[in-house]
């Protein structure tokens, strides 16, 4: 289990990271999500021992890591562009950690490690890892001949070869194009679960965080503003800043908020694992106390059976739906979705249905 307690990092007089207290239970994946420049990569480097802490402690399984140099921590790092060693081939890269003997007294003895000296065992292990990441037989390939996705897979195999006590991932999929990113994210999640690897991921992409992580922490300006199980953060953002960052696009207060809530279906499909629809909670409290109703665009769908009505301001196709900007009567301008085949033009009138999934109530 990784425990961060009051971690802070400074560069000269600039505070890059402050007051970070987080835990990652063994075998779980934590995503630190934040905009670029928020200090998340610095936090990652500090955990790896590459930056000195100004305050606080980093502890693994109850042992404070202060003074333990990076190479003795038993971690592995994976970057968005792989950072494979260009002068080695694929197998050479994966073999790299296998050829390093690292004193790791608190590790369970592992048959693979005991056999490390035998070259055939190493070769076997490399091939095994290549199969794990879906690149069997790639051992003799030059790194420069690999595509971006393949490089990331090799980087993952190299990191797994170290059997890290903690895997640190710095935007592991951000450099890849969209379809590849989605596929690799699924694979990566599968591999992390299957190998029981404890991992900490930093990213600015909320989808990446949502797919990969069990828990999520949001970081702005060097501070963690919210953390908890991924599902919980996803449905109950603590602040408007968090809500905007994880994809809520419309924010309503007062009468408009009440009107949308009133139109929200009483029986809505609930997402598994949440305590209850946040709209339920919102309905009772949104009145009068100045709180805000946050909507993802999926919360409002153009539907002839809907009870809200509005005028189309603009509409544009996105990959699997039509994104509509609507001036909703008595509510104002909101974002909504329509079915892919919908033909909407500016000025058209249409009806809209509100769904509790995709709504969240923010405190004042």
């Amino acid at each position: 289990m990784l425990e961060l307690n009051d971690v802070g990092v400074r560069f000269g007089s600039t505070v890059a990271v402050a007051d970070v207290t987080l835990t990652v239970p063994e075998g779980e994946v934590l995503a630190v999500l934040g905009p670029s420049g928020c200090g998340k990569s610095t936090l990652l480097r500090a955990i790896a021992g590459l930056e000195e802490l100004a305050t606080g402690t980093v502890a693994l399984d109850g042992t404070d890591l202060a003074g333990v140099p990076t190479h003795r921590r038993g971690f592995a790092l994976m970057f968005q562009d792989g950072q494979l060693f260009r002068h080695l081939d694929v197998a050479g890269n994966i073999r790299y950690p296998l050829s390093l003997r690292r004193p790791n007294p608190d590790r369970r003895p592992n048959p693979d490690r005991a056999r490390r000296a035998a070259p055939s065992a190493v070769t076997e292990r490399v091939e095994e890892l290549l199969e794990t990441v879906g690149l069997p037989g790639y051992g003799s390939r030059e790194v420069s001949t690999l595509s971006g996705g393949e490089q990331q897979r090799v980087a993952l195999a190299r990191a797994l070869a170290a059997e890290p006590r903690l895997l640190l991932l710095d935007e592991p999929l951000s450099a890849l194009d969209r379809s590849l990113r989605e596929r690799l994210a699924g694979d990566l999640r599968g591999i992390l679960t299957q190998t029981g690897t404890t991992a900490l991921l930093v990213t600015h992409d909320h989808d990446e965080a949502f797919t990969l992580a069990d828990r999520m922490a949001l970081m702005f300006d060097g501070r963690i503003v919210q953390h908890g199980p991924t599902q919980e953060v996803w449905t109950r953002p603590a602040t408007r800043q968090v809500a905007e960052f994880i994809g809520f696009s419309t924010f309503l207060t007062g009468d408009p908020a009440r009107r949308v809530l009133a139109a929200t279906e009483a029986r809505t499909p609930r997402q598994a694992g949440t305590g209850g629809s946040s709209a339920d909670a919102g309905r009772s409290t949104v009145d009068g106390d100045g709180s805000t109703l946050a909507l993802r665009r999926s919360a409002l769908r153009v539907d002839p059976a809907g009870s809200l009505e509005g005028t189309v301001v603009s509409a544009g196709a996105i990959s699997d739906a039509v994104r509509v900007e609507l001036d909703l009567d008595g509510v104002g301008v909101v974002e909504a979705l329509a079915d892919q085949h919908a033909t909407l033009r500016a000025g058209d009138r249409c009806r809209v249905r509100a769904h509790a999934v995709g709504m969240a109530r923010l405190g004042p």
Partner: protein
Amino acid sequence: MGRHRDRLIPALGVGLLALVPLAFLAVFFVLPVGGMLMRGFHPDGAWDFSGVAEVLGRPRTARVLWFTVSMAAAGTALTLLLGLPLAFVLYRLRFAGRAVLRAVVVMPFVLPTVVVGVMFRALLSSGGPLGFLGWDRSWVAILLAYVFFNLAVVVRTVGSMWEGLDRRAEDAAAALGASPGRVFRTVTLPALMPSIISAGTLVFLFCSTAFGVVLTLGGLRYGTIESEIYLLTTEFLDLQAAAVLSVIQLLAVVVMLALAARGRARTEQSLTRTRGVARAPRRADGPLLVVAGVVVGFILLPVLTLVWRSLRDGGGWTLDNYRLLAEPGASPALRVSIMEAVENSLRTAVDATVLAVLLGLCVAVVVSRRPRRAAGRRVVSALDGAFMLPLGISAVTVGFGFLITLDRPPLDLRTSAVLVPIAQALVALPLVVRTIAPVLRSVDPRLRQAAAALGAGPLRAASTAEGPVLWRPLLAATGFAFAISLGEFGATSFLSRPDRPTVPVVIYQLISRPGVDNLGMALAASVVLALLTVTVMGLVERLRVGSVGAF
């Protein structure tokens, strides 16, 4: 028709542009060097290679070759050993005063070789701070001067590579369990290897063709190939032996550059370059900081000693040495006052600079074209190589070649004052090209294509795309050529007339004569010359052209 013309005119223009420097190279390089070699191998109207074996068989030749190679190897190894920690400290760490230290480290490289020689004499001769070591006029002094002179090459070449090296590869290795030493060996070193090979080759080249330093520090006791060629031609008039050694040197240089290019190509990785990876020093950097401090001290010591001794007279402080600079009859060794020599030097340097920069610009424009046809590309790369040749041939050979070939009509320049600037321009030309061409090559050709697509003619398109980036390297090359010309000694020592010597020549004349006044004046003149070149190069440095002196 029109399309045809549009293609033909630029090609013709580039061709014409290449003709001028080619003609210059033919008359002032191929002809003199060829003349010198003919004198050696074709003495009495018939080819005669019998001397080759004889010259090579001489014990003295073997000694000179051994001294040249072993000293150059030792100098290269030592320079790399001391230069790498310094490169790390100056390019990977961030601390107050780093810019000043970088300037200090670069300074020796721009100092004239004769001045470096005088510095080490001042340091190591009796009366100098390190006189008790007894290293004056020994091979140790030459070795130290090699290292002093070339540290800048290693620090700049390797440092600029190191500066842009993505530290995340090292981080990844460290996280995987590699100790700092192992990270350096398995990740950093392979990535730096091309630049280390480049720098090492260059240092070896500079060490093995050293002339001014060897002559001022070793006198006639030690000889490199270059100083031996000088001796053979001026003292013994053994032109055949000199020709043999010239050819050996040329071959060695060409082979070395080719090997280096191959080594570089083999170790080159497609590296991701980043910016701003320098970090504040940590406790673990302590040992490297100490090494770097010692090396900087080693650089400053001879410099400060030179200034200090130029201001000392017996037991007290004095400006006499500087006062003597203006006096015409101050030393029996000289026919003119040193101030007059300074004036000569400056005037010569202006001429040489104008010549070198004009020709260099032509060459750079030509060799930075990328013709579509393979044949065209081969021509361009052949031209590129041809203008590097003056680097490989001994400046002494060029100087002497001038004297024996340009002494009769239609080109009787023997008594003309233009020979010195021409020779100096020839020496500076490759470096001018190497400063300008990389910048021109770095301009994305699509920029020119975009301009052309918008309706700009070939010339207009070229000036739109390349004009704005050109002035910095052009200014830098101008300063660089000026500094080189000011300090040039090899060819100038042959060509300058006794009544119009340049400063390096005067300094050499002064220190090769005994006498306290002579040494004092040499010290003062060295300070003046050093100040001049350092000022010029300081201005160049401010232009921040990455490719100054790059190969």
